[in-house]
């Protein structure tokens, strides 16, 4: 029984704690015009004073000097679409912050997609330009190095190794020869 009472007590405290807050909601929003109506309710059992509201990183604007307990204030503002952080403060230090999603209109979605596409194209162009530039740099560097190499050859500092290909051919012939010999020996022994 005690346990039930205890659990009930905890739940009660929890419910009480849940109820002691400032409630922020988007009551109305028209994406085309940006008109929005945000409702702020004082669910505390006490009045709040000097209540201020802040949208994202904006400065704080006075909502009301006295916010009576149980009261609701509507804030009519013009909001662009997207997710915005609404912060309510007061002298009592009971700050409330809530992310409100201001939904996009059809036009805005199209516009956003277009912008997204444009941004992606810009990003791709930048990467393409970077790749092209890297290629050009490599090409010009190869030319510079080739010139330097030519100077070195003329000065006798560098001798081009032309025997590698010949060596590879010789090794190849040698390997083929060995295989052929092994094949012949096996054939004879049979």
């Amino acid at each position, binding site marked *: 029984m005690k346990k039930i009472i205890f659990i009930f007590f905890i739940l009660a405290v929890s419910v009480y704690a849940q109820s002691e807050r400032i409630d922020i909601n988007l009551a*109305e929003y*028209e994406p*085309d*015009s*940006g*008109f929005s*109506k945000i409702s702020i309710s004082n669910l505390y059992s006490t009045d709040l004073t000097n209540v201020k509201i802040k*949208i*994202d*990183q*904006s*400065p704080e*604007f*006075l*909502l*009301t000097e006295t916010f*009576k307990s149980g*009261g*609701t*204030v*509507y*804030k*009519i*503002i*013009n*909001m*662009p679409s997207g997710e*915005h952080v609404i912060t309510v403060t007061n002298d009592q230090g009971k700050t409330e912050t809530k992310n409100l999603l201001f939904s996009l209109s059809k036009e805005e979605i199209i516009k*956003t997609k277009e*912008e*997204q596409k*444009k*941004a992606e194209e*810009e*990003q791709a*162009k*930048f990467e393409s*330009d*970077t790749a092209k*530039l*890297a*290629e050009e*740099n*490599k090409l010009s*560097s*190869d030319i*510079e*190095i*080739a*010139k*330097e*190499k*030519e*100077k*070195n*050859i003329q*000065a006798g*500092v*560098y001798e*081009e190794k032309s025997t590698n290909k010949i060596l590879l051919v010789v090794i190849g012939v040698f390997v083929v020869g060995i295989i052929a010999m092994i094949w012949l020996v096996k054939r004879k022994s049979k």
Partner: protein
Amino acid sequence: MLNIRLLKTLLIILIFLFSVNIVFGVEPAPCDPNKDGVKVGDWCYNCGDSDGVCPNDFVADTCTPQTTIDPDCVSGICSQRIQSECTLVKDTQGNNCEWIPDCGGVLDRFCSYDTQTQSCPETARNPKQTDQSGNIIPSYRCVVQGSTTYQAVPGFCNTNCLLPSSQYCQQKTCGPNMVGGCQNQCVSYQCQECDLSCSCVQGWANANGDPVDGCEKKICDNSETSCIDGKDNDCDNKIDCADTECAGIQGPNNKVCCQSKNNCPADGSVSYSSCSNDNTLQGTQQTYSCTSNECIASNQNIQGSCNTGCCLPGQGGSVCKNPDKSSMMDIDTDAKNEICSGVSGSGNWIGANCQGQSCVTDPAQTESYNCVADNDCAGLNPGQCGEVKCINNQCITQAKADAQSVCQGIAAANGYQCGVYTGCTQTQGTQWQCGFYGESTLCGNPNNPNSYDLGCDGNFKCTINLCNQGQNPCGLCYSQCLIAANDPNRAPYSAQECVKNGLWAQCGGF
């Protein structure tokens, strides 16, 4: 018997007469040149006692030149006698004098003591050698002793030549800076003077005409006319390359003359063949040094710093790349770009390490790198309030530090009346955009900020008439608030209250 008596008588008479002559002082008779006697002083001597040649038999050094040889007048010194007198009488020492024809010299005579004196040995008197003409060649030569006497000395002769060969004669040579000369010729054992013929060498003149002292005057050019002729053309005691006038001009030995390295050809261009590290080139260079007034070329191993650039190697060569986007490329073939950074003061490949003739991926930097400075990222679109940055050699965009003021500038430029800056956020791709929301309280009366009839529209302009706002049925504009405030049955209870709330919320309000 009679004859004996007669002889005795005659002898007594003679003795008597002689005794009388002595005892009584016989008076000298006057000297008669035609008689056998001579008077010397008060005395007359019997000429028969002498050699019979008068009148100087008894007085030394009183001889007078005469054709007849008088033994009394012959010198007591052998060497002073002529050939005909030589053996006539003994010398003052009682030695025999002997004529030695071998010792003929300029005076062609020699009278010496006898052989015992060894003044002129036997061998000297018996010449055996003859020249090609059959003339006797003296085996001893004579040298002058004093002005008239000669001494036979083996191997020497004042005549210089007794052999019929010019090799014993003096060779006449010309003076300094001359060519020519002549050889005295031997004629009859005597050297005949040859005619000395001399001429000056090129560049010299004989000022006084005397060939013995040579050509003492040098003929000089105004300058070192040739730097390869081995001559001091302008008489400044400097030959060819040593002359300052030859500096920088081709000299002997196919080398350029120099006084300092500045006169030598410019050092050859450096040929770089590899990299020591990311920052240092390695190669060779032909350089010149001025050694002994000649430009000497030599190959030097050279290490060249790329300073803030980077060494890029390849097969057989290496170059410096600038520390900027022009160096961005895949240098280690790992399909990722590397870039040279000179931020630390010395160039460093970001993403690779280069040495020798190749580069390998730097294990600490394995990404693809594309920038060194912010302006390398200029191709990126940072949006309204963003900026391109090169962070860790990669291009990114980020919100500007002063994004708020930038956005407020944009708001002002767009004529926003009620737009409130909410932040700079990344929206599309790399772009950062300014965020605003419309704050209707900013549409208030400037004279009374707490009062307003207009709300903020979607363009952040104060255009919404709150008094007739259908979208805001619960809101009252300021003028409506005033009316409401005057109606005690309706909230708000004061005009100020209405405005401060922003809206009078009949719907769901308090």
